């Protein structure tokens, strides 16, 4: 799913007064009218496409859910090939959200730190190359991350897992049964690496937009460099960092191949993040699609619809947060 709409939220516009309206209408030239028609047309087309996708997903989902013997929301099973079919999304929703949260917890602070380092601490000569390398991370296809994860990351996680089990095992969240590290935590770490470039890049751009005057004013008042960042840079960039994080979250929610390659999925919710198991929407669709019957596909589409709704909610939440912090947006600086 494309989540880029968040970043370029349209600047708030005042409704034109009657006088202004008359003025623009008076000065209508063919070019203006064509441009207006084109942009309005593409806006409407976008809405129609989204509605068509939602309509298609809903139609196929209803077909499947109406025949489902289990509860779609609470069943811990996915078996569409048997008669009667039983499937539910509880495990998928849990896995999708948990892995994305882990990814965000790791990626956001690291990304913000890198962005701050690049804009305020790094020697000028290093800024370009470092930013460039981070850009390259975004160009690596997810299946390559998946292969790297399965062949390099998973075997090397055992040490960390053992340590977590020894010291934090009592919490239940970090207990480990000694199996291969193909678990939610590993997936979360992998996702964190995958979403890091996008969050870093957008945050860096935002921090670069901080008005020089703000920083200089803070410095003139005797602030240290860290205080400048805390008082001038971070408050100014907060909404930008939030939208950057939401972009990253969008990628983490929908990531398919890397998760399917690294995770050892099953249909149980494990309290421990270290034991293999769980699953995500996208991973489940990828792994079940090729052998699924027509009905099985409808069921997978139903789960896709839930992912669609979750992503819409996330986007909506991000927009709400940004709207509340309008005073800091670049447009008003």
């Amino acid at each position: 799913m494309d989540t880029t709409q968040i970043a370029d939220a349209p600047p708030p516009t005042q409704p034109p007064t009657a006088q202004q309206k008359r003025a623009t209408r008076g000065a209508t030239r063919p070019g203006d009218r064509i441009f207006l028609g084109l942009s309005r047309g593409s806006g409407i087309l976008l809405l129609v496409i989204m509605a068509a996708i939602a309509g298609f997903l809903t139609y196929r989902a209803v077909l499947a859910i109406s025949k489902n013997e289990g509860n779609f929301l609470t069943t811990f099973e996915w078996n569409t090939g048997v008669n009667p079919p039983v499937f539910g999304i509880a495990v998928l929703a849990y896995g999708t959200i948990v892995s994305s949260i882990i990814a965000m917890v790791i990626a956001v602070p690291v990304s913000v730190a890198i962005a701050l380092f690049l804009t305020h601490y790094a020697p000028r000569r290093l800024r370009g190359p470092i930013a460039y390398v981070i850009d390259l991370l975004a160009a690596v296809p997810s299946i390559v991350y998946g292969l790297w994860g399965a062949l390099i990351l998973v075997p090397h996680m055992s040490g960390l897992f053992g340590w977590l089990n020894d010291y934090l095992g009592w919490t239940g969240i970090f207990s480990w049964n000694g199996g291969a590290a193909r678990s939610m935590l590993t997936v979360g770490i992998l996702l964190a690496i995958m979403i890091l470039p996008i969050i870093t890049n957008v945050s860096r751009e935002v921090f670069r937009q901080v008005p020089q005057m703000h920083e200089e004013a803070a410095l003139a008042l005797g602030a240290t460099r860290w205080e400048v960042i805390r008082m001038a840079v971070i408050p100014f960039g907060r909404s930008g960092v939030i939208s950057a994080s939401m972009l990253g979250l969008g990628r983490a929610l929908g990531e398919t191949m890397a998760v399917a390659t690294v995770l050892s999925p099953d249909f149980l919710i494990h309290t421990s993040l270290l034991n293999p198991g769980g699953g995500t929407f996208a991973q489940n669709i990828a792994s079940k699609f090729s052998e699924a019957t027509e009905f099985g596909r409808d069921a997978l589409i139903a789960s896709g619809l839930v992912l669609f709704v979750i992503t819409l909610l996330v986007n909506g939440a991000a927009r709400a947060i940004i709207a509340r912090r309008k005073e800091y947006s670049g447009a008003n600086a």
Partner: protein
Amino acid sequence: MKLQRMNRRALALGALAVSGALALTACGSDETGTPGGGSSNAAASSNIKCDDASGQVLADGSSAQKNAVDAWVKQFSAACKVEINYKAGGSGAGVTAFTQGQVPWAGSDSALKPDEVAASKKICSGGQGIDLPMVGGPIAVGYNVPGVDKLVLDSATIAKIFDSKITNWNDPAIAKLNPDAKLPNLKIQAFHRSDESGTTDNFTKYLIATAKKDFPYEGGKAWQAKGGQSAPQSSGVAAQVKQTAGAIGYFELSYAKDGIKTVAIDTGAAEPVEANVENATKAIADAKVVGTGKDLALELNYATKADGAYPMVLVTYEIVCDKGNKAETLPAVKAFLRYAASEDGQKILAENDYAPMPDDIIAKVRTTVESLS
């Protein structure tokens, strides 16, 4: 700045090219070995009857038989002017493509279901889709237990292992079947398929048929027992078994290579049965045809106790219309299936770790292929 942007674009293009190549290679991850191998010889191709077959044939279906089809295609297209393109998109995709009339034949790990037969009547004018058993595949149970070179298990023990009821290699149930083996005190890591699969379907069918008490599930293409670990595709399971000490997993025999050892099954026959193609053919010989009319769907006898019959087998079918095939593809499909069912065609299977069909079944397939119209 502009220069930098150009560089970036060039690099992005480069990255795209590399990733494209990687993606293409990744698509082939479920293939094994070299199809056909060095077995191709002029004599084999001269036996192929092309008739007036020509043109291009698209097909889709089971990935389990992909290497078999590839081997056939190599021989067949060397002899006839037909280009056959088998896209191993999975049994479900194959059957869907067939019932929608996109492909003239499909490969499937399981016989057509009644509603699929009904759907096929729309595209087979005056006829219906039928199943032709053409390729057998032993499902091997591979294991990785340090110091254990030979392992015998029976169906009840296999069921308990995969249902997480037996969790350690030094369990008395395993020790009883392997009095000579030095079983370590090691946790069992049982691997199943994370994707839906005909291999899972047939593996669980075997367990349900022979050890219902220890494997109380319905079966199907999706794995149902809780616990254990999973990996995508036969290649994924085999890779996990290879790199994890204490692992056990099931996959097609052709993936049991690079030092992966396989379990011999105690079926109640005089000797435990090894997983190999001859033993699989012997087990398929015990199957009976349950399809009606020209349909040759098989019902396997999983509980067979015949000496040397390896009961954990998968049969993949070629699905075609018995009547009402499209005129432009019929000659090519017929000639290809005729070759696949021929002695030469079946002989190539064993070279690729597949089991040829037993004589009386393949004889029926040949008659049916000749009657396609």
